[in-house]
Each structure stands twice: as structure tokens, then as C-alpha cells.
């Protein structure tokens, strides 16, 4: 069965996205990317340290990985757009995760500002993956604005609490036609598996891998959980019935 993950016009095998923040060192990061088979990783943009030389994260990300620049730090749509443009100017691609947060207590994204930034960036040809609190209206607006996917949070960033918002994520999966990539709050492989079983297109994990005692092993476990959940989801899809009444496949015949 062909289950290629198409995102932003590109084909991927892995539905496990890895964030690169919070790792104890960069070699652990490289090992985690390799052990998990992640093909898309997020990075952020920061002012360089003028006093000291620091290692550049790009040197620790293997060739061929798609970079998804997170606009983290942006507190408004304008700042997010500015960061995205900077990232594109680097020559390392035009994929952006729009993250607009003006809240340091919960780190909840500003859905409205995210929609604005998405519209602006999509119009400029970026592949936009917006990070939002799951909300149907927001998701519809994002779809209309040209987002390549929607990234609803499972629970608060870094909390590892799993799919606290599962019912709302399910609404998005059921109602939105662009991929739903669950991001934030995935603390255990079972959470990642659960998201995929529900029908999510992919999952992004950062903190749970970075702070694990053994990040490469953790990354591998999450990637496997994503595969298992995806297979579980696909295995439940019914075979198409040619003559079935789609809305009442079992009892429609009584009313024909």
C-alpha cells in the first residue's frame, strides 16, 4: 500500500518530525536524527554570538534533511514574517513553521496572528506549517490562506502531557483536508502512536527526545510509535464497497 507522506509538494517516508532544541549537545542531535530516520527537522534563527564562536547547528544536520525554520521568538505576525524571510535568505529552503507566541506563561500560540503570517508568507511562496491551538475556524482559515499543513498542539510545549486536546485534534483531522501534524506536548511514544491512530498525518517531537536520558534511543522509539500508529490507522480503513450507500453503508438498502 502506497502511504507516501506528501507535504509541501515533497514526498517523505517518515512521518516523524524532530525538533532540534534543548539537546545536551549536538552529537546527540545528529545521532537522534539518524536513529529515528526523521527527514524534516525544525531549527530556529537567533542573533549570532559576537563574543564567541559557536557551533552551527546546520553542520550537525545530515545532508538531504528538510529544514523547517521555526519563527520562535516572534511575538507578532510581522516578526514571524521577518524571521521567515531571513531564513529563506540563508539559501537553506523556504519551509517555515509559523510560531507566534506572546505569552511566556503557557507559551500558547496566537492563532489570529498565525493566520495573518501564514497568509502573507504563503503568498510569497513559502511552504508554511502553522503552529496553533486546535480550533476548527482557525484551521479552516489556515487552509484557505494556503498553509501546507496545520500543526495543532497536543498539550503545552514541553509538558509531555500527551493529547490533552485530542477531541479538538480529531475534529481537525475529520474536517480539514490539509495534513494535520500534531506538535507540542508529546511526552511518550504512546502519545505519538495515539495521534497517528486517530488519523494525524505526522507528529513533531522535540523536548521528550532532547531531555531523555538516551535521546537517540528515544527518537527511535517515537519514530517506531509513529509507524505503528499509522499502520494501525490504515489497517482500520474499510475496503471500498462499490454499491454501498456512503452515508448509510449498512442499512441504506432498507430505504432504497
Amino acid at each position: 500500500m502506497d502511504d507516501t507522506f506528501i507535504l509541501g509538494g515533497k514526498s517523505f517516508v517518515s512521518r516523524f518530525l524532530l525538533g532540534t532544541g534543548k539537546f545536551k549537545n549536538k552529537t546527540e542531535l545528529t545521532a537522534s536524527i539518524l536513529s529515528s530516520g526523521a527527514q524534516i527537522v525544525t531549527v530556529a534563527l537567533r542573533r549570532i554570538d559576537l563574543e564567541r564562536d559557536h557551533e552551527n547547528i546546520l553542520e550537525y544536520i545530515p545532508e538531504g534533511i528538510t529544514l523547517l525554520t521555526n519563527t520562535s521568538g516572534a511575538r507578532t505576525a510581522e516578526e514571524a514574517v521577518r524571521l521567515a524571510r531571513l531564513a529563506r535568505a540563508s539559501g537553506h529552503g523556504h519551509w517555515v513553521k509559523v510560531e507566534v507566541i506572546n505569552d511566556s506563561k503557557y507559551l500558547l500560540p496566537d492563532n489570529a496572528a498565525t493566520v495573518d503570517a501564514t497568509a502573507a508568507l504563503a503568498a510569497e511562496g513559502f511552504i508554511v506549517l502553522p503552529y496553533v491551538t486546535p480550533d476548527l475556524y482557525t484551521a479552516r482559515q489556515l487552509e484557505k490562506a494556503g498553509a501546507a499543513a496545520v500543526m495543532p498542539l497536543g498539550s503545552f510545549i514541553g509538558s509531555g502531557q500527551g493529547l490533552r486536546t485530542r477531541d479538538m485534534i480529531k475534529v481537525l483531522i475529520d474536517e480539514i483536508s490539509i495534513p494535520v501534524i500534531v506538535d507540542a506536548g508529546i511526552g511518550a511514544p504512546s502519545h505519538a502512536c495515539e495521534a497517528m491512530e486517530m488519523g494525524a498525518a505526522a507528529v513533531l517531537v522535540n523536548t521528550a527526545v532532547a531531555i531523555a536520558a538516551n535521546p537517540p534511543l528515544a527518537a527511535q522509539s517515537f519514530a517506531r510509535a509513529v509507524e505503528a500508529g499509522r499502520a494501525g490507522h490504515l489497517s482500520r480503513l474499510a475496503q471500498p464497497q462499490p454499491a454501498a450507500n456512503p452515508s448509510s453503508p449498512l442499512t441504506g438498502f432498507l430505504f432504497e
Partner: protein
Amino acid sequence: MSLPSPQEIRDILNDNCPQRLEAMAQEARRITRHNFGMTMGLYTPLYLSNHCDSHCTYCGFRNRHKIQRTRLSIDEIRAEMKAIAAAGIRNILLLTGESPHATPLSYLVNAIQCATEFFQGISLEVYPMATSDYRALYTAGADGVTIYQETYDRARYAQVHLAGQKQDFTFRYQAPERIAQAGMRQITLGILLGLGPVADDMHALFTHLHSLEKKYPGVEYSLSFPRLRTVRSKAFTAAHVDDASFVKILCLTRLSFPRIGINLSTREPAALRNRLLEICTTRISVGSKTGVGGYHNPGDDHDPQFDVADERNSAEMIQYLKTHGIDPVFTDWRRIENT
């Protein structure tokens, strides 16, 4: 879990909303699949005799009906069983009319012993008897008994059962307990849909089953809902249970009893059986002849008890199941020694 009241059942039967029916069917299917998987048990009925001392106004075998009365000899029984087994079937249901005189215990025991040569599952649908008699059937090798109360409405019951032992409502009602006490592993109960008031009969059937489950939890129970059909186009006046109601009845049964078997006979036409297979049935009869014998020499069609509406033979039915994602189950489990 609480059983639906007669009024709740009536409300469901009167509800014409297609979406609610579909939702009920989806839930019934989900529960059935969880508990039974993608499987269907198969069995074939063999009528050993149509001699009957009772007069049930709705039955093709009724005492006053002028049909050719016949009873298979042990050699004929063997020939019939051989033919059924040759079609791949390993579960047989042996039926007789209500006549301890024509088909006494010894006759039934002989038939069962013969059946053990060919079948792993042997059930009987015969007249109610004493516990010790059921015990004899069990030790001979039978593992199941089917007995329908027909209707739990005493007034209606008296109205349609006009002669013979069948008139005794209570003896029949208490038979399942005696069957369980005798050690039988499998008991099938049922009502004849359209004979009595449907919602009340369903409620009474559910209550009967529920009390048996409590008292004899080791028994594997099944329910069956034969719909009154015409025999050779002789109509019997009864309440009409339409297809939608029939579907609701089966679904409601599944929702009320997640793990009991739900049987479906060849009284129902192929197209409807095909639909119901997808929803909540767990055992079906195949290749049925409902007159005495009829397998060894097909066309030797003695007067049938009811008209068969699904005439597919075993091979056709097996093929249908396999091409529709259902595994036909011939043998559920094997008897070692009925002790």
C-alpha cells in the same frame, strides 16, 4: 446492564429515522466484530421426522395438516448425514416434530450417535423433555439444544397451540433450565416473529435469557428470530414484521447481549441475509432442506416445515463469505467426551 423495557423496544421499532438505524447497525457491527471477529458459524438442519402430536396453527407440520408423515430410518439418517458432511458442514441441527411417540428418546439417541461419526457439533430442536432425557442426549454426544418459546404471551400462546404437549406453556418455558442442568453446552432460544406482540415478546425473551445467564453462566447462549413465513403460500395471519424492524430487532439484541450468538436461518432471502451477515449475525444455516431428509436424494422434497428463501448451497454460501471478508467456521470446538 439494563435491558430495554417493552416501551423502549416499541419506541425503537416505531422510530423511522434512517440515521439512527444506521448508527445502531454500526454499533451492533462493532460489538459483533470485537466479540466474534470476522467469522460466521455454519450449520445445516436435518429434519428426521415430521410426525407431530401437537397442533400449532402456524406450522407446516401441524397435527391436523394433511401431509405425508414420514420418519427416517437409521440407514436413511446415515445417508443424509453423509451427504451433508460431504458438503463440508460439521455442525448439524437435528429436528423432529413434537412426537415422543414417533421419535422417542431412544430414536434421538441413535440419531446422535450416528451424527458423531460425521459432525463435531450436534444440536437438537425437538420436543421439550425431562432433565434426565436431556442428559441422555448429552452423553450420546449432543452439545446443544434449540427451543423456541414461540411467544411469551400466554393468551396468544393458548390461541395458536391447540393440541398436544405443546399446549403446556410452562413445561416449555422451563425446558432451558433442564437443558442447562443436563450439562448441555449450548442453548438457543427464540421467538417466532409476527406470532405474538413483538416488543413484549422481545422483552420477555431478553428477560428469560438474562435469568438463564445468571443461573447457568457456563452455557453458551444464542438467540434466533425466525420470521413467520408462508408455507406453500398458505398465509397465516400475524403481525407483519418488516425488514427494517427485523434489522432493528437483531441490532437491539446485539446491543443488549454483546456476546450471545445470533442465528439466521434460510427463512430469510439471500439478499437480506447478505446484509445481515455484515451487521451482527454469528451463525447461519446453509443449504437447508426443511422437509424430512432431502439431502441424500435432493428433490425428494417432502412437505417442508417452512419455505426456504435462501436456496444457496454450502459451496455457494462459503464462497460468498470468503469473498466478503468473512471466515466460515465449520468447527468451533471438538468434543472429547461428553461427561
